[in-house]
């Protein structure tokens, strides 16, 4: 082996400490990007694949006249790719003793020949035995239900029982672990038995050549004309987001975040690498001088250090690549578990390996280039005088004694000032780490605050949603004897439509009619005012509903359709809430205009004792009463539980933000450690002299620790400043992602986060300066003066 490569290997062996830190930094960087690439590749493909393999319906239509429809004729139309009946009823099922969750029960025409909305066998029987149901696999995690058990189903106030004969996987559904729904599938006869309603009243359609929601709307418009000619009256229709999984938003957030934070930590790892490389080169400058003096050309120097870098890169690739594949897959598996989809990707495409390997080789070279070029181009004279024969000129012995006596603080300050460039880089990366970490906490508390506000805005503790409207007195009757109840208000909830363009809109607008002066709800007003109770018909929209009116003008009247009646109502305000599109109306006016029999369908119960345990206890009591009284209920929900459900939607995202930002912070402190390391090397002689004139090891350690402390404090300060705009941006971003367009979250400052950041940064800063400082104490007078 040529001597130069022998030298490279020995050098790496001897400097194993800095080399391993450099390899570690490279590995972390590569690991980060690699995990990012792998998981992005897997998840962006697989969730969509999972969803698309269900062949999602483009539109759902409800009608009672579908018997007039010749389905074969419909299927023969060029526009129609597939059409199939799939009834859906919302019932309730007992998941644990006296705990009920909404049940979405579907009737399936032919389990073996589903043309859309497909789901897949997991366990037990498929198709289900006659008169039994199949449930979705995610339900197993939130209930006692399983194959062979009997489900108690509440339907029209009665309890009906049905056996579960199998488990299926339905990638088209939102994960029930997050949304708290049970999904069940059965045949038409059993469906009618359980629901007491006829089947074949809900039709799913997939259009050919539909690429967007707009296409679907247009095609439906044409179809609905034909339907009315046939005498088929469409009661309602629903167009879901086009080819998009209901929890795609969650995945998108994760992918965005991964992307941003992964790239940032990669950049930081690379900054660290460039610092480490320049530290290694600093140690080598004199040797470069000698080698040049005895005949080494720039090519030789280049070869030596490129070999150096390539070997380190190789090591980092050997560790980082398999690690990235493993964690990328594990991370995808974790997320797929949360969102309930299957990982379909088994083999990484070669491109992923190639990209990661390339990144692993090329990036370190690019980032070491400044140091490498400096080494190649330095003149023999400069190289030798940097350390060697001429250094005697550099030793300033005049005021060393003074330095020891003067405060260590001012010496540290002076050193920071002396190495401005490097310290700036260190400070900027540290500050960035601090800022991201702090932003993670701030966003978390923004969300937390928003959730608190949401659940506090609800002054009721339990909400009972009735399936069939009842007169208020009748609805209240069964609950008369529960002493723990403070008060009950009756509201009306329903579905209405907003007329926003030539054809009527999607049907998803919820209508809530509430006493305008109800004390059970506080409002997070974004714009305008709450209902005033004026004589005119007013309404307030939540931010999701506001998206349906474009442009949103407070004070303008919009046509709305309530119980088939077209009315003009004035928009007086917009509120922010984590909910589907909803509008609020005054109950009195609603009753007068469209609800003359004054039936209500929601009971808003508030309790004397609002503690969580008490609420759950009362909830069970309420459930028992409902069962006994045979009330037909959609759900009983407690506000606290609702907050938990919402939080579950966001928690995974928050946790990952914090984890990733901790990674960023640790990478930046490694950068600080390496900058400190360079300092120690460069000041070897100074330290030796200090020791020679009487500095104790402790003093030397303090010199660096104080320096590290100053840098940490300055970084925290800069990071804090930086975190403010970053948190505001992030709050905006999250607001839009979770709540919809133009709905920023409020900026919140997390004191806890700040405290943790403070402690973590100081701790990291201490470690990062302590290790090189210890190394500095190993510098004896002899070593420092002996030039080696």
């Amino acid at each position, binding site marked *: 082996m040529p*001597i130069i490569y022998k030298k490279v290997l*020995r050098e790496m062996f001897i400097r194993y400490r800095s080399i391993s830190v450099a390899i570690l930094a490279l590995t972390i960087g590569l690991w980060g990007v690699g995990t990012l690439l792998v998981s992005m590749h897997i998840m962006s493909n697989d969730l969509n694949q999972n969803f698309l393999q269900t062949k999602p319906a483009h539109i759902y239509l409800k009608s009672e006249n579908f018997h007039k429809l010749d389905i074969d004729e419909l299927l023969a139309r060029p526009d129609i790719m597939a059409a199939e009946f799939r009834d859906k009823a919302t019932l309730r099922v007992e998941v644990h003793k006296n705990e009920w969750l909404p049940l979405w029960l579907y009737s399936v025409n032919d389990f073996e020949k589903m043309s859309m909305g497909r789901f897949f066998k997991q366990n037990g029987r498929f198709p289900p035995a006659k008169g039994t149901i199949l449930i979705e696999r995610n339900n197993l995690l939130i209930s006692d239900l399983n194959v062979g058990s009997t489900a108690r189903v509440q339907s029209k106030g009665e309890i009906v029982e049905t056996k579960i004969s199998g488990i299926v996987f339905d990638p088209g559904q939102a994960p029930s672990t997050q949304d708290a729904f049970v999904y069940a599938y059965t045949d038409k006869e059993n469906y009618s038995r359980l629901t007491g309603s006829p089947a074949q009243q809900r039709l799913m359609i997939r259009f050919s050549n539909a690429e967007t929601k707009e296409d679907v709307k247009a095609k439906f418009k044409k179809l609905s004309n034909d339907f009315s000619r046939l005498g088929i009256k469409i009661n309602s229709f629903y167009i879901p987001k086009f080819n998009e999984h209901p929890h795609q938003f969650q995945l998108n957030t994760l992918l965005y975040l991964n992307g941003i934070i992964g790239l940032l930590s990669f950049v930081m790892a690379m900054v660290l690498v460039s610092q480490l490389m320049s530290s290694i080169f600093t140690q080598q400058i004199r040797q470069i001088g000698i*080698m040049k*003096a005895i*005949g*080494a050309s720039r090519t030789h120097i280049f070869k030596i250090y490129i070999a150096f870098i390539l070997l380190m890169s190789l090591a980092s690739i050997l560790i980082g690549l398999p690690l990235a594949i493993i964690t990328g897959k594990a991370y995808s598996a974790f997320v797929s578990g949360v969102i309930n989809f299957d990982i379909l990707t088994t083999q990484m495409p070669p491109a992923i390996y190639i990209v990661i390997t390339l990144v692993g080789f090329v990036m370190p070279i690019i980032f070491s280039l400044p140091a490498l070029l400096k080494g190649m181009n330095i003149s023999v004279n400069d190289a030798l005088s940097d350390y*060697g*024969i001429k250094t005697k000129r550099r030793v300033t012995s005049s005021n060393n004694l003074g330095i020891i006596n003067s405060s260590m603080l001012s010496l540290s300050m002076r050193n920071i000032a002396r190495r401005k460039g490097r310290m700036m880089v260190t400070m900027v990366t540290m500050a960035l780490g601090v800022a991201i970490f702090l932003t993670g906490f701030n966003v978390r508390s923004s969300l937390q605050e928003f959730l608190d506000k949401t659940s506090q805005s609800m002054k009721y503790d339990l909400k009972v949603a009735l399936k069939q409207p009842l007169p208020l007195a009748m609805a209240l009757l069964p609950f008369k004897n529960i002493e723990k109840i403070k008060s009950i208000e009756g509201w009306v909830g329903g579905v209405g439509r907003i007329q926003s363009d030539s054809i009527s809109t999607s049907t998803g607008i919820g209508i809530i009619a509430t006493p305008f002066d109800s004390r059970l709800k506080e409002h997070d007003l974004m714009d305008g005012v709450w209902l005033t109770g004026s004589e005119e018909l007013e309404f307030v929209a939540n931010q999701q509903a506001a998206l349906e009116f474009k442009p949103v003008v407070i004070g303008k009247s919009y046509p709305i359709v309530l119980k088939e009646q077209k009315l003009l109502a004035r928009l007086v305000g917009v509120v922010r809430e984590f909910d589907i599109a909803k509008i609020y109306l005054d109950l009195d006016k609603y009753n007068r205009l469209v609800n003359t029999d004054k039936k209500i369908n929601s009971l808003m119960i508030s309790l004397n004792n609002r503690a969580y345990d008490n609420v759950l206890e009362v909830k069970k009591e309420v459930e028992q009463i409902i069962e006994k009284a045979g009330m037909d209920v959609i759900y009983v929900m407690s506000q606290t539980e609702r907050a938990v459900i919402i939080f579950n939607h966001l928690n995974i995202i928050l946790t990952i933000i914090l984890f990733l930002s901790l990674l960023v912070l640790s990478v930046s402190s490694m950068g600080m450690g390496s900058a400190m390391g360079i300092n120690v090397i460069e000041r070897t002689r100074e330290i030796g002299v200090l020791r020679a004139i009487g500095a104790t090891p402790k003093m030397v350690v303090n010199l660096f620790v104080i320096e590290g402390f100053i840098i940490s404090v300055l970084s925290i300060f800069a990071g804090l400043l930086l975190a403010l705009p970053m948190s505001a941006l992030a709050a905006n971003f999250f607001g839009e992602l979770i709540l919809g367009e133009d709905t920023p979250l409020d900026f919140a400052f997390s004191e806890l986060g700040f405290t943790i950041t403070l402690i973590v940064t100081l701790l990291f800063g201490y470690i990062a300066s302590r290790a090189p400082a210890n190394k500095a104490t190993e510098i004896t007078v002899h070593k420092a003066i002996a030039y080696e």
Partner: protein
Amino acid sequence: MKNIIELEQTSKSFIQGDRIFTALKEVSLTINKGEYIAIVGKSGSGKSTLLNLITGIDHPSCGVVRVNGTDIHQLSESELATWRGKNIGIVFQFFQLIPTLTVIENILLAMEFVNAIPKNERQQRANSLLEMVDILDHGDKFPTALSGGEQQRAAIARALANDPDILVADEPTGNLDSSTAMSIKAIFSELVANGTTVVVVTHEGIDDSAFDRIIELKDGEIVLGITNASASEE
């Protein structure tokens, strides 16, 4: 070729802040092949600067430096490096061996850079160089395991790796005790006897009759060139 080193009106100035300091002032100097030259003078008189111009480590501000017939400051950096490796051996005050390589590897490295000695002869040549400087036993040791005198011998052996015509040394014995210094000087004399041109910066050189010529510098100028009688026969 008789004149192996020629300096014509060579000056070297350093810019220090806003003023220019001239370390060498229009020095003209000719050194013949096979001469043993001592350069003496007070600290700061410009000795190292002169040596650095001869080796091409530093560039003159004006004037010409011709070594072995080559105007060395016309060469590019890379050409200069190879040229230097082939033609000039350099010995430093502080030995400057590569600490991660053994003594013999230090020598082989110099051969590898210049590529003037055929590969299959290198090992043997390195051994005979070590034998010449009397440290054959230490060839496989790392420099730190050697005494100062032994390290300097090793450095000389490395300087001779590519069989250069000229050996240049900046205070090679400045860091050694007097008896060790004597043995190093003996090696230089032996080299001169074998035809190598040797230029040494030294402090204690004036009374040393081994030198063919002693050149004294003062404030960047040659003030004295004593020629020893024994050298004039050449």
